[in-house]
């Protein structure tokens, strides 16, 4: 369960997030969309306890993000867009390190890691044999996702989780998150791949310039905007001019 009340974040005079009101019930899979710089990542960073809001409040699983961030952090998993991990470590060392931060006993951690490795087709040789710096982008992303889910969080934030994953891994992942939501985990899914969001998420929230400009099921949004696809809805709500005409004009200029 996530609840935001007038949540705002400013950097000096620049307002990144402006008074968000939102409630996501337990077990819901919500797509969080918005153009670049709309405030999605800032919102997620506030909800994971990484950033302090300037004003407003938010609760994750009943814990206030300002007053009780450690409890919030114990309950959330986060896959950052950067896919950052400690590259000098092997996958096994990294995942054991993450497990230790959540006080998961080593034997239990190893079991969980093995389950994720089997799911993501990571061979034991890959896990312990080479540093993460030698991993492909897709394999690294599998480790990042594993590290976000290892402690069985109640709420998971995914920021562009399909980065680098091949088609099979992406398909497995999409199935995994719908199953996780069915099992009662609250999932916030941030992505620019709108057709994936359309297929996977039961609810879509669109943020533009720090404000929520649309909130509903994909069908509701399509009907309200009078557009046949989520892409059309997104374009209508967030683009300032005709993107197709602009792109064609730019391509013509490039080829001259």
């Amino acid at each position: 369960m996530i609840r935001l009340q007038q949540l705002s974040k400013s950097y000096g005079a620049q307002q990144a997030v402006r008074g968000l009101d939102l409630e996501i019930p337990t077990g819901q899979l919500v797509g969080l969309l918005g153009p670049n710089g709309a405030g999605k990542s800032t919102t997620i960073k506030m909800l994971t306890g990484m950033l302090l809001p300037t004003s407003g409040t938010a609760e994750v699983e009943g814990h206030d993000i300002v007053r009780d961030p450690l409890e919030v952090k114990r309950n959330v998993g986060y896959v950052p867009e950067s896919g950052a991990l400690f590259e000098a470590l092997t996958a096994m060392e990294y995942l054991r390190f993450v497990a230790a931060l959540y006080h998961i006993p080593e034997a239990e951690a190893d079991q969980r890691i093995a389950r994720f490795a089997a799911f993501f087709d990571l061979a034991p040789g890959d896990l312990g044999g080479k540093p993460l710096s030698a991993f492909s982008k897709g394999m690294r992303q599998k480790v990042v996702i594993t590290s976000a889910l290892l402690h069985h969080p109640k709420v998971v934030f995914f920021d562009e989780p399909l980065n680098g994953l091949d088609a099979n891994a992406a398909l497995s992942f999409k199935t995994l998150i719908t199953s996780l939501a069915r099992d009662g985990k609250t999932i916030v899914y941030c992505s620019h791949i709108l057709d994936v969001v359309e297929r996977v998420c039961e609810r879509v929230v669109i943020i533009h310039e720090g404000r929520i400009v649309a909130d509903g099921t994909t069908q509701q949004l399509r009907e309200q905007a009078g557009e046949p696809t989520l892409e059309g809805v997104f374009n209508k709500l967030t683009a300032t001019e005709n993107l197709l005409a602009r792109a064609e004009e730019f391509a013509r200029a490039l080829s001259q």
Partner: protein
Amino acid sequence: MNATPATPVVDPVAGAGAGRYPVPDRAQVRAILKTTMLRSMRGRMMAGRSGKPRGLIFLVVMYGVLGIVLGMLAFIHPDVFSYSMIIWAFTFLAAGMTLVVESSTLMFDARDNDILGHRPIHPRTLLLARSLSLLLLALILGLAINLVPMFTGLAVTGAKPWFPLTHLVTLLLLVPFCAAVIVFAYGVMARFVSRRTFDTVASWTQVGVTAMLVMAYQLVPRLMDRMQGFHIEAANPLLLALPPTWFAALSQVMTGEGASPRMLVLATIPLIATPVLAWAALRYLAADYARQVSSLSETPAPAAEDAPATAARRGRGLRLDALLRFWLRDPIERGAFRLASAYLTRDRDMRMRLYPQLASFLVLVVIAIIDRKTGPRFGPLMSLFIASTLPASAMMTLKMSPQFAAADLFRYTPLTGTASLFHGVRKATLVILVLPCVLVSGLTLWFGLSDRSGLSIALPALVALPTLSLAGGLFGGDYLPLSLAPASGRQGAVNVGMMFVGAVWLAIFAGLAIIAEKNHWFWWLLGFEVVVLALLHPLLLHGIRARPLNREDS
């Protein structure tokens, strides 16, 4: 408008009760420390191309060699206090300067925030783990310096058989003191300085701390003019304020000889100051530290600027751009110059690793002016020593960046060699760093010294600086700016390595200049040097141009 009141100011994470786990959380501290050590000791992120911690190994070896030289002091049989004073002053300088430059990597790595920022780690736990990493680095360096002096100290007048043990115990107190001072300084800055100005204040604080370390190191031998029979009761009061004095007093007290009341008081200071500083940093400043670390991934809002100021800045930029186009005709060289200038002046990581070296300039110049015993040559020679290390050291520093992956740009763009990149960066370091430093120190010495006869001694080396700055383009791998990951110990190794190179360079040029001056053929020497350089310079340029770019990923 939103009517919700602003969020009350709450200790961002500390308020968050540790809940089920103690604070600091020992299991988490162990995990973070173990991971930091693993990262420091191996792998691409923290080591050389081979995966070995070359920087750290080189630094340890260099400090070990310096320790051997220092240890030889024991054989002129000073008393325990004087010997310890000199050893601790150098340990402070070496370990302190390394900690200052390495702390930006160990304490404030913005990349770590995406990995650790959302994990349930209490700020005190995080600060303790990071401080312990810093402490371990300082301990390795401290042991490297003191390994030989610890045992040669047995030859010191009045040393007891247990001198090595007391020296080790004192070192084990001195290292945490050094680390605690740095952690405390960062904690105070994190509390009182805003995100927007933190980077600037932090880098200038590093310059200040380095200046103090150099000043203390230079002052110690000047304030104690006797190595035997030195009496602390009669010492200059300034000496009592220097931390090496406190630790030397502790060494003296622990050897059991000559423990006067003043000596006892001095020896008590580190025993109290170290735990107090560490406790205060962890107890009161941890939350501010965590907030500042998390804010590293934020983009600070630009300061509001009025239209005339913006227009004036734009005008200045256009004039400088025209000048640059006139001077650097090669667009790649010009681009590299702009890249290096931007990093030298704006990048937090670069400023924190490079600016502390500039402090030595100022301090040595000031000492040359205030200490009349140094003679007219000391200031020029020391300024020259630092100036000679600056281009190579700055260019090595400009090879390292947390954004090292972006340097792949140089490999997939159609470059045939690295010459233009190298020259662009080299010229930027000469114009932005070396020239201002030489001008400031030269003018300060010119106006500050009553006897200016020693100033000419610096000329042969200064004239050779631009040509010798080409050497880096001929040796080592490709010169690709910002292409190496900052490594634990790597910056310190660069600095110490450059000190050695600078010392050799100084010995050659200054020696020749002094001999020439004595024999009245100084200006002939300078003329000869100009001719040699005029021949050598194009040869070196040709050599650099002829080097092909290795496109293999390092």
